[in-house]
């Protein structure tokens, strides 16, 4: 935390900011991780990198075959 404090007013502001940030309510790491795990599990099906495309038609990047008009 190297900050160049040039005068008292600035130092006061920095201290107040540090106090504000120190005073917030925190949850435990285990709770935070569990909540994220829950989110991931709930949204698994939306994640193409996890479940892939449901069918090739759902993939807009696929090569489209040429169509002939009869």
């Amino acid at each position: 935390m190297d900050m160049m404090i040039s005068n008292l007013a600035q130092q006061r502001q920095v201290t107040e900011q540090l106090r504000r940030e120190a005073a917030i309510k925190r949850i435990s790491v285990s709770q935070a991780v569990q909540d994220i795990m829950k989110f991931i599990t709930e949204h698994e099906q939306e994640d193409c990198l996890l479940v892939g495309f449901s069918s090739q038609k759902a993939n807009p990047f696929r090569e489209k075959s040429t169509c002939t008009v009869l």
Partner: protein
Amino acid sequence: MRRSSVDASIMAADAQKKGQDAKLEETCGSMGDAPKVRLVTKKLLKGHINKVNSVHFSGDSRHCVTGSLDGKLIIWDTWTGNKVQVIPLRSSWVMSVAFAPSGNFVACGGMDNMCTVYDLNNRDNTGAAKIVRELAGYEGFLSSCRFLDDTHIITGSGDMKICHWDLEKGKKTMEFNAHAGDVVTMSLSPGEGEQGHGNVYVTGSVDRTCKIWDIREEKAKQTFFGHESDVNSVIFHPSGQAFATGSEDKTARLFDLRADQQLALYTPPNKTSGFTSCALSKSGRFIMCGSDDHSIHIWDSMKNQHNGTLGGHENRITSICLAGNGMALASCSWDQNVRVWV
């Protein structure tokens, strides 16, 4: 005075230590292993004739904009690989680009110390998108910008500040000192409904910290320590509860807002190069980082396992961006190419 600021820091560090009741890898023991991510270059977008520095997807998950030192912005249709628009810039020193979620505007800036906004639906007689705003007054390079919507943009710059602009009025609505070093990256929290984003955003800086901000306020909400060198890239977790980072210190990390601390540290098998950019998959399960070593590294964010490496680029990767629908990853590099991985 110095004593009370030290006390406050100690108070915060103690509270964080108390919260460390578990390690991420252990808590996720019950999760199944993640499958190997299968991503290949589906489109190799050629067109730029110099290093490409930044890429960003539109809200339609189909178009993306890239900015290059060749002095051009190119709007690509990633589904076909076609160039939709080429915008010549007044300054070729572009470092950062942004696509408005609506798809109507793009913004860019860099060593010209300005942020320029272009209207993609309004072209001049040469066919190039018209400039709607030139946002000046920066005392440092423009390193990052993000549209809140079609009329509001926030920027981070080399003068260590964050600025909020009203694009309709062309006026700065907020300007404040943000970090103790260049602000180099920012990410908006995900949101519901029309707005598309929440009221919170995260910034990363050369001062090695990340900070959380409320878009309505000028003082940071939280500061995150841990990185040992420049934080080059930040990206919000889709849950809105966390964010991931990529750093010059050759690590990627996951920080949680409510625990107010780092949850995980990710390193590649050969820890040789810094990370320039990062992205998270749609569920948040995978974290991806673009690297100086020309590849994109992928990790299972929960089990902290390196999942794979995407090779192809022939030089440093400068920026990566996941489409909003999670289907494709765009990457750009000093090798002048843009790749779309699907």
